[in-house]
């Protein structure tokens, strides 16, 4: 038994993600070095041996995600972390885990792409996370924290939902959040019982029929039935689990939509625009899948225009348009490749939107 104190400490985002996972019961971390998630793995390497857990540096991101698949099959809480190019390699394992109904946590501390891209913060893996985290009909839960505290809170939430719905969950962070230091309150979760996993492949102990973890179904109708069952579960998730934050939206005529690190920049711009008398608000998706469609639609009720702000070429904008059924124009402002938008730039765009 490992005891944890509830405490308030100053931590880097990457390290906070690691500590939060440990407190949520993760004792099996499998990784492969990549910038800018390095501190997460280094933290795990230091902590895990002290608490009887496993830190293992795999031979590749592919091996790491498959070690997670094995650990998840065995019924324990497992985790891997990487950054954009590495996450591309993990998509094979993510698809198999989705197809085998396995819960696990994958961290993506995004950097610029495509290809080797760069090592500066980016949000250009939105499509990958929400549209194609692997081949086949599937979703993973996608959480987008905007502070170190939220990173901690969402790790625990992600594990709980992943276990509950038996599917992989991803924290979609970025290099800015990963490297940022902020005060954070770490809670003591050591009393919280972890869910029982009757389906796990952990040895039947001669007490039950063998459990099989598998994603192969050669009969088309059987595969269709299973995928449809999974999509019934997805429907429940889309109904019950979307998370978002509204800021100054009550009387807003203009809505800015931004998530993660970008939402902090957007919030500063919204605040400044308010002080100049522009009725603007911010809707910040906290879950990217399920996307907070209802919150968007509600904000669109009295809005004249939307502005989507992202560190990409505009990957979330389609989800916003769909959520509000193109009720009003949705503009876009962003930077990509690791260039970070400034509050002044976003303010400028808000003013343009309000004048139009």
């Amino acid at each position, binding site marked *: 038994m490992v005891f944890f104190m509830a405490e308030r400490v100053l931590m880097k985002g990457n390290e906070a993600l690691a500590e939060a996972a440990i407190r949520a019961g993760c*004792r*099996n971390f*499998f990784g492969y070095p990549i910038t800018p998630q390095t501190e997460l793995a280094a933290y795990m390497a230091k902590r895990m041996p002290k608490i009887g857990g*496993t830190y*293992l540096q*795999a*031979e*590749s991101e*592919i*091996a*790491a995600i*498959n*070690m*997670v*698949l*094995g*650990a*998840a*099959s*065995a*019924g*324990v809480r*497992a985790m891997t972390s990487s950054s954009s190019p590495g996450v591309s390699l993990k998509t*094979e*394992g993510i698809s*198999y885990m989705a197809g*085998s109904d396995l819960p696990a946590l994958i961290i993506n501390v995004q950097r610029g792409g495509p290809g080797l891209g760069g090592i500066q913060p980016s949000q250009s893996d939105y499509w990958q996370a929400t549209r194609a985290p692997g081949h086949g009909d599937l979703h993973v839960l996608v959480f987008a924290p905007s502070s170190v505290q939220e990173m901690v809170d969402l790790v625990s939430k992600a594990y709980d939902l992943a276990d509950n719905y038996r599917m992989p969950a991803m924290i979609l962070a970025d290099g800015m959040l990963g490297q940022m230091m902020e005060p954070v309150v770490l809670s003591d979760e050591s009393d919280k019982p972890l869910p029982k996993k009757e389906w*796990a*492949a*952990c*040895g*039947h*102990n*001669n*007490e039950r029929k*063998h*459990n*099989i*973890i*598998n*994603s*192969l179904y050669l009969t088309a109708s059987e595969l269709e039935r299973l995928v449809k069952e999974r999509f019934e579960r997805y429907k429940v998730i889309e109904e019950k689990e979307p998370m978002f934050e509204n800021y100054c939206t009550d009387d807003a005529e203009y809505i800015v939509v931004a998530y993660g690190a970008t939402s902090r920049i957007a919030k500063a711009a919204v605040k400044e625009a308010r002080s100049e008398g522009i009725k603007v608000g911010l809707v910040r998706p906290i879950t990217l899948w399920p996307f907070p469609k209802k919150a968007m639609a509600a904000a669109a009720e009295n809005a004249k225009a939307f502005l989507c702000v992202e560190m990409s070429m505009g990957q979330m904008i389609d989800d916003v348009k769909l959520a509000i059924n193109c009720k009003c124009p949705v503009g876009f402002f962003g930077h990509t490749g690791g260039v970070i938008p400034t509050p002044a730039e976003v303010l400028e765009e808000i003013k343009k939107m309000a004048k139009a």
Partner: protein
Amino acid sequence: MAVVFKKPSALTDMPTHYCPGCTHGIIHRLVAEVIDELGIEGKTVGIAPVGCAVMAYNYFACDMIEAPHGRAPAVATGVKRSLPGNVVFTYQGDGDLAAIGTAETVHSATRGENITVIFVNNAIYGMTGGQMAPTTLPGQVTQTTPYGRDVKVAGYPVRICEMVSTLDGTAYAERVAVDCVKNVNKAKKAIKKAFQTQLEGKGFSIVEVVSACPTNWGLAPNDALEWLRNNMLPYYPLGVYKDKTEEVKE
């Protein structure tokens, strides 16, 4: 009436999908007999590959996981690190283990991962209909080497036992064949020793089983075994390649 020969209890009642003359059936049986004899079915987790043995999860009565192509040793690593008290084995073919999964094979061996690998080498991709495998012999005709494997174009076969025996983490590596009764008995002994190596916590153990694929070799079952003896065994000599099991544990 006295029963003189019965199905091992570590095999389920499901009929296998293997072709007539395929040696997977023999190897499944040997693994199951060993699991029975060691009394470990309840704590064993098996990892099935992608390839002909993909549905091994239906045939072994222990808990089973189906891994992505080539990743069985990584999946086994995840299981073993989570449940160190359990017995974990992978069952893989040559394409799975020696081509797409080479990195996983080599690194689980060099880490001394305390797992057991059953490697079925039949020099061809069976499931997809007989393409060149990493272990296809020079000159061997397959669907994708229709003029015979030309080493100038396709390179040379991989000898896994020789390769992994150079790694410090490998505790036990033996190559066996299942072409005749004598060799089948030797194969069972090797498989048992591999599982015992794991039970004693000595590290990575691998048994390479030189096998026949009559369907994709285009030979009758008996002729296939003859071809195996005449062509595969000279290239893949049988024997123990590494045995650290007698060394004193540090």
